[in-house]
């Protein structure tokens, strides 16, 4: 085995994993703070990708700029959805909010379809490559991975070092207790959901940095699915857990492939994905609440 290949695959896995991580963090956050399973997570990611596409093609704005647009739109959208719809459903069984976010996801997909059509769009944003031994890693994907990591770091700092962050964590731990302490729980919910939506849209932009093609209204579904699994792996509600879970998944996907290829499995990639779930299952046996309990 070529050692250069292993190093390259490892780095590629880290990059991909970082992206999976940021995608999962949004889902974990909303669940942690508001106990809502956000099924529209995938649709929001898709809208983030379309945002990057629209502003790149229309206004020559690089995806970096679209990141800011994404967070602003996500925040406002999340807060409004909360006040309009989710607020009335907070106390009820977890499943009612699930239905609401399900309806929302269909709605968002349909709007995207009606607005952009069903074509598979893309754009070209190339920053060059860096050579690692004989292999190439694109700068844009490295940038994507690094930005994902920075967002997670900023988020963690926000949650642990600021007053509002403490309020968020307080509500996540015990809404009633937080209310007694004088925190306006509804406002915190709105903020938390807004940040979650914003993170989802930013993930969409970051994904286009990694792969700026194949953008279509049904883009989000595979990411939603992966996020669910990663979030369980990392522990529901844990930001760091979601990110680390993402890294594990990314590494597994890229690094396990040559192994399965060597073993002459018919579709090594499918086996790799299967292994990810086996990892999850084994992990749940040992630590049922995920790697990092909230």
């Amino acid at each position, binding site marked *: 085995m070529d050692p250069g290949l292993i190093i390259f695959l490892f780095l*590629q896995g880290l990059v991909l994993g970082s992206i999976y991580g940021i995608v999962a963090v949004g889902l974990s956050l909303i669940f942690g703070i508001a106990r809502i399973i956000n099924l529209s997570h995938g649709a929001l990611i898709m809208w983030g990708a379309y945002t990057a596409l629209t502003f790149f093609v229309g206004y020559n704005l690089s995806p970096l700029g679209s990141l800011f647009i994404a967070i602003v739109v996500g925040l406002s959208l999340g807060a409004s959805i909360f006040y309009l719809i989710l607020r009335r459903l907070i106390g009820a069984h977890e499943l009612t909010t699930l239905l609401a976010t399900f309806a929302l996801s269909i709605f968002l997909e349909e709007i995207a379809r009606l607005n952009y059509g069903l074509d*598979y*769009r893309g754009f070209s944003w*190339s920053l060059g490559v860096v050579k690692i031994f004989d292999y190439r890693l*694109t700068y844009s994907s490295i940038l994507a991975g690094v930005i994902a990591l920075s967002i997670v770091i900023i988020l963690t700092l926000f949650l642990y070092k600021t007053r509002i962050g403490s309020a968020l964590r307080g509500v996540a731990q015990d809404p009633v207790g937080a209310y007694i302490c004088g925190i306006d729980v509804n406002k915190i919910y709105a903020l938390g959901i807004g940040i979650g939506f914003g993170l989802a849209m930013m993930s969409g932009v970051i994904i286009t940095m990694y792969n700026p*093609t194949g953008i*279509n209204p*049904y883009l989000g579904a595979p990411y939603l699915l992966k996020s669910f699994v990663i979030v369980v792996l990392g522990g529901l509600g844990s930001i760091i857990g979601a990110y680390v879970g993402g890294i594990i998944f990314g590494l597994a996907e890229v690094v396990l492939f040559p192994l399965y290829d060597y073993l002459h499995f018919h579709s090594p990639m499918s086996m790799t994905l299967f292994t990810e779930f086996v990892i999850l299952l084994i992990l749940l046996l040992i630590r049922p609440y995920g790697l990092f309990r909230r």
Partner: protein
Amino acid sequence: MSSSQTSGKIFTPLTITLIIIMLVIGFVSGYYASAVSRPSAPAITYTYSVPYTSVATQTLYIERTIYQTLLTSPPATTPTTPKPTTPPPTLPSEIVIGMAVPLTGSQGEVGTAGFNGIKAAIKWVNERYGGVHLFGKTIPLRLVYYDDESSKDKVVQYTERLITVDKVHFLLSSYSSPLVFAQAPIAEKYNMLLINWGGASDLIHLQGYKMIVMVWTPASLYMTQAIDALLSVKKDPKIVLIYKDDEFNRMVAGGVRNYSKKLGLQIVYDRAYPTDIKDFTPYLTSIAPLKADALIVGSHFADGQLLTRQLADQEIDFGFIAMNIAPCYTDYYKAFGNLAEGIICPSHWEVGASYTPEIASKLGVEWFGPTEEEFVALYREIVKDPTARPPYHAASGAAAVLILVKAIEKAQSLDPMAVRKVLGEMHLITFFGEYKIDPVTGIQIAHKMILVQWQKGNLVVVWPPEVAKSKLVFPIPTWAEKKAGKQATP
């Protein structure tokens, strides 16, 4: 806590009796109702004659099989000799074609394209051609359609609705092999002709269905033309084959494998990848050291685009790259710009590669339908975009309509069996290409794929030589050269 919930007998004798009585009544009445309405024993056959005056005046007998239903009161005897017991029916004022097609969902884009092509063809038949020529009159076509959302249970429901509620005369298939598979039993049950313009899997036609007719090239022959083209420029090439692990692309890959084996070519890498793949890197690192001449990819949209992106990033070069589906679209060039240069895509049809009446007469085959110019103009009217470029799904759908109309005219009948028989014998050329099927299975055997290649920002037809507008570029520029701006020039 009421006592009936945790203790005591659940079923008192009275309750049990009542339940049993209700069940018995229900099933007996249901059975009785179904027994009366089921086409159990003889389906009543009416024969009637319709005078048809043509050059040779003849009387045609049309047999119609009508199932007894609860709603019509039929006579109990089957007339054995054809005698006009009923007066000749009036011809329908319009011929209704039904279609469940994905306008949304994973197949939404291509389904909509086909749908628009079908509408364009119907417009041509009704307005330019005058309608279907039946028994000396011209009858217009009407389309009834439902969006099946790319979903199997919907396509089954709506196909049935088209047959039983809307009472269409003929069916056009949905788009994509799994959906056509799902609707086939329904069409077969009602003895309804199903024109398959959107399911490329050969297997559909190997299941013994009698009423399905394929219009375009089956999956196994998708890439064989690409191999021919490759051989025309390079002897004994080393081929890398990767394909999406779905039924359609597996057939495409299988076709490549069989054809290569027949010709003695070596495939140095042969792997499938999962449907929603997000990263080709592991495949690419295995492929790069092989330094092969040709890359053949069985792909769809998103994966095709992703692969192109990552090939370019990794700068893995091939002299010949043939990719399914994704590069056939203008969105591909919009997404990749110069990097798309040189990429080849097999297509059922492209603007500029149409057959013409001249080609038809040279080949001695009957011609029917609009020319390419007429079709493109009609398509643009339908989609209300004067620059629109119809993709091959639109042309395939249109061809389905044209072939059906021609077969109806040749059979001079609306009876599905008669039309099916004619379809089995017919040899026709439309702007879409040749049509001829295997009469038993309904598989298309005459329609050939063409190859298109991106050259200097345009998608040009490079193969087969009869319709080629430009020479095949081989080897194509390397990724580095393309990034520097080099284009594929023949």
